[in-house]
């Protein structure tokens, strides 16, 4: 379990560094894809235990350290979809294309809802949130959805280090 969590956090952190530098100006229309988030989703789906949620928390902390967001903000945004995935994996089986796209897109929407929840709990002055009326938010959801399929395929190659115990076991 520890190996899976550490590996997920390390790879997630690597993705976050890529997001801040190489993808700093955005991939499309200035919008940065959330590769670390995609990793969290995959780890959450493919592990029976809490590896995904713990990795979501740790990666979120790393993201907050790199960002001007309050510490714990991104952790919350990552944990909520990671937790939701643990229910989804009992209902649907992962395929190569359709489910990753749906998961990437819908989980980004869930991330948006999580940010609005935080903005409601804290004041809007203290924490920023996604806006469903902002086209950039939908572009991010679309990019995350589109990139989910190829990245999930890549993550599958890292199964020995990212997965402790599959949900089917």
């Amino acid at each position, binding site marked *: 379990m520890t190996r899976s969590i550490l590996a997920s956090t390390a790879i997630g952190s690597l993705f976050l560094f890529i997001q801040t530098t190489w993808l700093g100006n955005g991939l499309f229309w200035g919008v940065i894809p959330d590769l670390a988030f995609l990793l969290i989703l995959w780890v959450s789906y493919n592990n029976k235990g809490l590896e995904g949620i713990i990795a979501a928390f740790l990666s979120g902390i790393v993201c907050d350290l*790199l960002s*001007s967001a309050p510490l714990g903000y*991104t952790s919350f945004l990552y944990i909520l979809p990671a937790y939701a995935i643990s229910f989804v994996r009992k209902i649907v089986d992962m395929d190569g294309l359709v489910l990753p796209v749906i998961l990437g897109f819908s989980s980004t929407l869930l991330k948006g809802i999580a940010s609005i929840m935080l903005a409601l709990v804290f004041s809007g002055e203290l924490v920023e949130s996604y806006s469903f009326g902002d086209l950039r938010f939908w572009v991010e959801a679309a990019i995350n959805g589109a990139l989910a399929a190829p990245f999930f395929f890549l993550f599958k190659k890292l199964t020995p280090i990212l997965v402790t115990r599959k949900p089917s076991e």
Partner: protein
Amino acid sequence: MPQKKRGQGFMAAQGIPLLLMVLSIILVSISTKTVQNLPRAVAAGVSGGVQKLFFGVQNFIQRTVFSIRELRLLREEYETLTAKLESFENLERDYVNTLAENERLKEQLSFFESVSSIKAAARIIAKDPGNIYSSCVIDKGSSAGVEADMAVAAFQNGIEGLAGKVLEARLGSSLVLPLYDGRLYVAARLSRTRVEGLVNGQGKPDDPLLMNYVSMLNAQDIQIGDMVVTSGLDSIYPPDIAIGRVKEIRTPKYGSSTLILLEPALDFSKIEYLFVLERNKDPNTTAPEDSLGQKTGTSP
């Protein structure tokens, strides 16, 4: 029988003249001594023809071989020249890039030398990993004297513009909050009318900045295109650094203050270098000249 006689007659009539003509030619040849050179001439003619033929073949082969070799050489030469041309093109491109970079650095350097309150010149090395928050990381930190809440400026198109402030100073890098971030508030004033207000961003670099708390009475003198600068009435931002130009003036029917929308002075998507400024030690001090070179007075 008479037919045979007629044929012999025809032969005699036609052959004899021909024979005679040949004979006469031979005689002429003998008399002119041409005949003794005839074999030589014939041999020379034949050999010359054969030689010509051989020469022609040789020449053809030579030319063909040579032209193949020449073609190969030409191709090699062409490839060498193409490579050279490419390297020259790259050199030219490098030269143009170096020239442009030189111009940019000169511009930054002239700004660096002209402003005495610069603490450190830094380069943007990273940006925020997500799409909600907007911040950037510069390559100078506390080791270079950078501290939290120091103002950050940039020099673009001849204008010294406010870029934001240092949110967090680390050892070798600092986190900078850009001017368009919704959490940043800057005490500002209009450069021409000296009317004061509070500027903050809307979170996106493309959206206009908002100048709040401008008295409706003072707003009447404000014109579209007026420059808004820092007022220096806080301990963070030095005075008279350009913030933006008035884009729109919104006057509510009921209320006491006017909302002014500003076009940022800097194009944030093009900023590469930032200058961390010294803290504004005396909040009431105003510089003799603003960033546009205009003489400005003290606050009213």
